């Protein structure tokens, strides 16, 4: 059985917060990454090991792609990635994964994440904005909401990016929830609070995309089920 090993070059590293970095890779072989928004790549990190990282970007050509790396866990994958210098090549397989947008997309989409769980949702949202999911003609019917939870204000990532999408009308609501810090500009509490402001139409017709730690995913899924959301309308990926 042969699996296509792909290669890409690290071309940019950016600090998104004290503990999270964005890596941008340029595709070398093949020159375009074939994947669906929400999928991940499985990177070879040596000793026959590989680790999955969700692609956090989407562009028409996909000749480059981005990953969001949380450097907090001290493991082989993080050490491997931290030691990569600009110009280094990585080997990987992918895109892989079932956490993708369904064919029968609802008009009301809710994206819920914590931490680096934002990565696949960002790719999906970029795809949807580039596909004109919300336009000036349909913005009354179509909803695209992002609810992002984290502990402290300093952990927020891509804030300006999503505020810009909000101001341009590509997304209809963007809320940040801080679980361990009070700040008048953000909601206080866990990301599951988002459900309090939804309407029965949202619960009945919406689709919900959740990504982050297992406990958060379970908790949000349970809130939605209790609100009457069909399990078929809940899509999730657990990071641990």
């Amino acid at each position: 059985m042969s699996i296509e090993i792909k290669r890409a070059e690290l071309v940019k590293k950016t600090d998104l917060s004290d503990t999270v970095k964005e890596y941008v890779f340029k595709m070398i072989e093949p020159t375009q990454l074939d994947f669906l928004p929400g999928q991940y790549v499985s990177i070879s990190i040596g000793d026959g090991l590989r680790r999955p990282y969700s692609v956090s970007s989407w562009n028409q050509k996909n000749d480059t792609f981005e990953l969001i790396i949380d450097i907090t866990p001290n493991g082989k994958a993080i050490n491997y990635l931290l030691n990569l210098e600009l110009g280094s090549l990585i080997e990987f397989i992918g895109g892989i994964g079932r956490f993708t947008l369904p064919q029968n997309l609802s008009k009301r989409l809710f994206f819920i994440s914590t931490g680096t769980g934002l990565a696949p949702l960002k790719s999906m949202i970029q795809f949807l904005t580039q596909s004109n999911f919300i336009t000036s003609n349909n913005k009354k019917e179509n909803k695209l909401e992002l609810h992002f939870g984290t502990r402290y204000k300093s952990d927020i990532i891509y804030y300006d990016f999503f505020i810009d999408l909000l101001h341009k009308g590509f997304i209809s609501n963007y809320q940040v929830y801080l679980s361990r810090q009070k700040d008048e500009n953000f909601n206080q509490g866990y990301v599951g609070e988002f459900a309090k402001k939804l309407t029965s139409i949202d619960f009945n017709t919406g689709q919900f995309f959740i990504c982050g730690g297992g406990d958060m995913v379970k908790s949000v899924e349970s809130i939605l089920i209790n609100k009457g959301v069909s399990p078929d309308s809940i899509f999730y990926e657990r990071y641990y």
Partner: protein
Amino acid sequence: MKNDIQKVKVTNKNSNIAEIEVDRDLCIGAGTCEVLAPNTFKLDKEGKVYIDDVNSHSDQEIIDAAKSCPVFAIKIYDKNGKQLCP
């Protein structure tokens, strides 16, 4: 509560692998194992791994698939009972 664990013996005489074990509670449904050894590791409707046909992939393919698991939910034992991975 006991974990949801599936163990399957490998009967192929040419294989050095004796047993494959998956911990379905640990599994987060990443699915790289299913890509690397699709006949042996499959994801069910809930996105949890289960073991199917253990005789249609090489030992190396099965070991590579086990080593790709980010949460170490797959264990491989050889015929001497030694754990080959993780």
